[in-house]
């Protein structure tokens, strides 16, 4: 977890999630491995926005089969997914 917490990518994603979704849920203290959907921080329409943002911001192409909670469901998942796509 230490690597993720310090990575600029993780911080960028935290900021994006906070600014775009968390402001509607001031009661939530989101941890990096908390699940967005489970906590109600992001709903399925929000998921559309998140996927769109990841593709645009990081210049990666996401296949249909990759849009899963395993890849997009938390900060930890997002960092791992984006780094894997960049390395590919």
């Amino acid at each position: 977890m230490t690597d993720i917490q310090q990575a600029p990518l993780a911080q960028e994603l935290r900021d994006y999630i906070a600014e775009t979704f968390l402001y509607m849920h001031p009661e939530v203290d989101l941890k990096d491995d908390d699940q967005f959907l489970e906590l109600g921080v992001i709903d399925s329409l929000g998921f559309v926005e998140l996927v769109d943002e990841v593709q645009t911001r990081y210049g990666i192409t996401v296949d249909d089969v990759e849009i899963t909670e395993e890849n997009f469901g938390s900060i930890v998942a997002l960092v791992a997914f984006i780094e894997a796509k960049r390395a590919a």
Partner: protein
Amino acid sequence: MCGLAGIVRADRGSEVAEGALLRMARSIRHRGPDGYGLARGDGAGFVSTRLAIFDIPGGWQPMHDAERSSLLVYNGEVYNHPELRAALNRDGVATTTTSDTEVVLRLLERDGLATLDRLNGQFAFAWWQPRERRLTLVRDRFGVRPLHWALQGDGTIVFGSEAKALFASGEVAATPDLGGIDDVFTTWGPRAPRSPFAGVQQLPPGGLLVWEDGQIVAQRTWWEPAYEQDGQQPEDLAELLEDSVRLRLRADVPVGTYLSGGLDSSLITALAQRVSDHELRTFSVAFHDQHYDERGYQEQVAQTLGTRHHVVEVGPREIADAFPDVVWHAETPMIRTAPVPLSLLAQETRRQGITVVATGEGADELYWGYDLFKETALRTLHRQDPARAEALLDEIYPYVEGSAARRGPAWKRFFFEAGSDADPLFSHQTRIAATAAVKAFYTPETTAALAADDTQQRLRDSLPQAFERWSPLERAAYLEVTTLMSPYLLAAQGDRVAMAHGVEGRFPFLDHRVFAHSVRLAPERKLDGLREKAALRDLAASVLPAEIAQRTKQPYRSPEVAPFFGDHAPAWVQERLSDAALRDVGIFDPVRVGGLLRRCRAGKATGFREGMALVGVLSTQLWHERYCASADYPEETAAPRVSIDLSTAPTT
């Protein structure tokens, strides 16, 4: 046309103050700029404000019979009044005017409420029978014309076309009804009998209410949209719609049409041009922002049909400047700015000397034009053939930003997992889910208060027994008529913004005979695969350019965030959205709203849900300030055209 209001007390000896009636009259003079009339006495008082359309010298109200045993204040039009008058005259019932008001009054006196089935039109009225001390309130089939009422603790009933007339009476206080407001953030409009005001009820579309001596003795619907097949073949649509247009061009003043550039209003304009005996005037909204603009199509139709065309061009500044007045006239929070350009259009229409306009409203509900019907079809198909349904989903919503590929599976999940088909509200769960974004900004107190007043459950409980026998698309149509069209499109986006400027909208598709036609029509003549309004397109092909007749529907929208931020933004936006103002009203949470405002100011609030949330919060704040935090209702100062003393009426 017109506005109406009144106060009737259980105790006939208790006076209705003239000042109260004058304040009520003033509050709804915009509905009747040509003059007003009063009737007062015997524990009752009535107000009529008039927009003169039929029998300009003779149609003043309140109208009563010779014995003053029956009195009517009436708002609207009965288009078949010449035929009904002729039938009355043949039966030996004399009439002295050419107004529709007198026809309705004579029919009520002779046939009672059985009259209603014979009326083809859009109306609301209050019928007073002083001998019986009976007041009957009635609203037209689709609720084109509004009617509000409140029953006081002492049995007094206060009513008016608009809720502001009730507050102007000084007898009803304006306080929020969170359940009515929550309707807006669920299905876009406050659904009768609720209103956004506690204790103020809307008479439902097709509804009637009878009050006698301080009590409501009857309350029922006299007409409801129903989708049972009656075994009859549908009539010829061309003939029927042309007849409906012909009836709706009846007026003693010139009539125009609103032209959006889409199929429905273009078709109505083409038919109006065919049956009109004068140069037809058309009126359109154009936007600075090309994303919303349809002027190319509008001009094409106007040129093809040879109408005298007028355009009102609207930008962010015009929307922001007019927004507070639109909220005042609409009397409700709203989630879209779309009523604003229509208010500006009505203003220009009036300025051009036109007070009556026909529009294409109703076609999408009757002939399944909205994307919601396609969604419902695909979501139903998804149960049997998920792959096919998912492939087809990309063919709808082409105007939503982002390519279909980029929307991807999350987009599909939103549609195909939005509610069970066992839920009566299945067809509307995607809209309900998207609109609920506004509710994320409620204070915890608002959310807690609404826990025991679930708007979706209220809606389920209100559905007719036959609902479960209808097809998924028929259910969707019923819900679209009763949750979107009547409470929002015909109200905040219809009657209120047109009558704000003394302009009357007329809706040929909302002739009850056209509704019956649409029910009888085979489903595939409405939605054929994903091609909407097949029957209307075929008809349009004979009277309009192919490009218009075959054009895919573009939803009418108006900019939502841009008008309220940036250099041109009015100062009241910041004031109404300040922490202090939000805390004072208490419906929305300042912390959550603060986050939204930061995104709006940074230009990042580009999603449609954030647009809805901003307009929802801002309109609620304005609505509260104009209604709940103020009670300044001046008296009408002009002399009435009619003043009737009811205390001299026979009482036994």
